[in-house]
């Protein structure tokens, strides 16, 4: 059993390949998490606009991209773009798809955070002479982020896990490298090793989240 699923010789041989994959997963996460946050920030700030011509299309946009499986979006971009003469790389497609998909999720979370800040805070900030933009940046956003921090972290965990979709469009991240190693060795050890790496990397975040969520429930 151990020979099959955790063959030490294969572990030794596959390790450098997986390590390169891990590096790419980390790099990819460093690119797509801020990208999604940026998209979400734009959406959440626009959500404050009262005009129904902004409000309804915005809500439809967010719900559309929350309803759309990210893998479908990715494949659509990757397989569809060559037909209109655009040869988008796997990396570009991942970036666009994550910006649209995870941006919608981050946007919902940040919107809830912004709505949780009492209007008195905004009135007070404005009365001291701060502009609208300054009020958002220095008064509303810091409190909003603090209020929804567990949700933001939870979504970030999901985004990092989602980078494994990059393997489908041939991005050499952790899962892709593991599958390459597995198909060469005809042995599942590289997949087990990759799962282990994901687990070791993300477990602390899961523990932290579990504690934060329990505390939120205890306070409710």
């Amino acid at each position, binding site marked *: *059993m151990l020979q*099959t*699923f955790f063959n030490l010789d294969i572990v030794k041989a596959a390790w450098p390949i997986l390590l390169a994959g891990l590096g790419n997963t980390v790099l990819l996460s460093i690119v797509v998490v801020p990208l999604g946050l940026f998209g979400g920030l734009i959406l959440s700030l626009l959500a404050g606009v009262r005009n129904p011509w902004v409000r309804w299309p915005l809500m439809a946009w967010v*719900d*559309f991209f*929350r*309803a*759309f*499986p*990210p*893998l*479908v979006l990715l*494949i*659509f971009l990757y*397989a*569809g773009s060559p*037909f*209109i003469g655009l040869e988008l790389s796997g990396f570009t497609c991942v970036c666009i798809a994550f910006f649209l998909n995870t941006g919608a999720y981050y946007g919902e979370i940040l919107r809830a955070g912004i709505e949780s800040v009492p209007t008195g805070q905004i009135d007070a900030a404005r009365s001291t002479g701060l502009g609208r933009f300054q009020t958002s940046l220095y008064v509303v956003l810091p409190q909003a982020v603090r209020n929804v921090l567990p949700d933001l972290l939870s979504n970030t*965990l*999901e985004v990092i*896990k*989602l*980078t*494994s*979709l990059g*393997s*489908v469009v041939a991005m050499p991240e952790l*899962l892709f490298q*593991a*599958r390459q190693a*597995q198909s060469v060795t*005809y*042995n*599942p050890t590289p*997949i*087990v090793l*990759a*799962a282990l790496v*994901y*687990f070791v990397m*993300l*477990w602390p*975040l*899961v*523990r932290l*989240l*579990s504690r934060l*969520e*329990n505390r939120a*429930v*205890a*306070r*409710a």
Partner: protein
Amino acid sequence: MSNWERFLDTFFNARVMARYLPDILYGTLITIELAALVIVSGLVAGLALALLRSVGFRPVNLLIVFTVDLFRALPPLVIIVFIYFGLPTAGLSPSSFVSTWLSLTLVLMAFSEEIFWAGITSIPKGQWEAARSTGLSYGQALINVVLPQAIRLTIPPLTNRTIAITKGTALGSVVAVSEILGMASSAVSNSYNPSPLTLGAAAYVILFFPMVVLGRWLETRMRWKR
């Protein structure tokens, strides 16, 4: 042909769409089947684990917490690939459908256990004590007093999480489940035209958009009371 016409002919080609519509419909059926199975088994397993945890036997609880952590930390696609490509080496060969179903069930089990457990622990102790003092047994108190209140609290987060995980049925295409995305992808390579993907995308929106709107509505209707 103008650019606009060329665009329409590429992504909304009526002839190609008509040709592959039955395939996409078949894929939609498989997606619905897979999604329904995942939702039922994942939620039942999650609730069962949360109930087991409420008994409070420490070794069992540690095991439950570890299992939940494990399936929260692993990307679903990694679990699918492991079950489909890894298990056959040990003599078990689950089909691609079963692999996808099992993986998503485990993930939904983990997330829903967390949510159910949070719901159960959020019920004030006084409710337990009052129920027990009227002569209800532990099981009766749990089923008739605590769970109805707990489940109400869990519905909005549970709905959103369930939708997010159910969308993962598209991951089945990676191990060749003939669900919507799988059918659409093979139709694209057969027809050299991306219109089947447009159809597939439309099928996903028709399936999941109402669910997302429902989730949003539930969220505003049944907020966690502070």
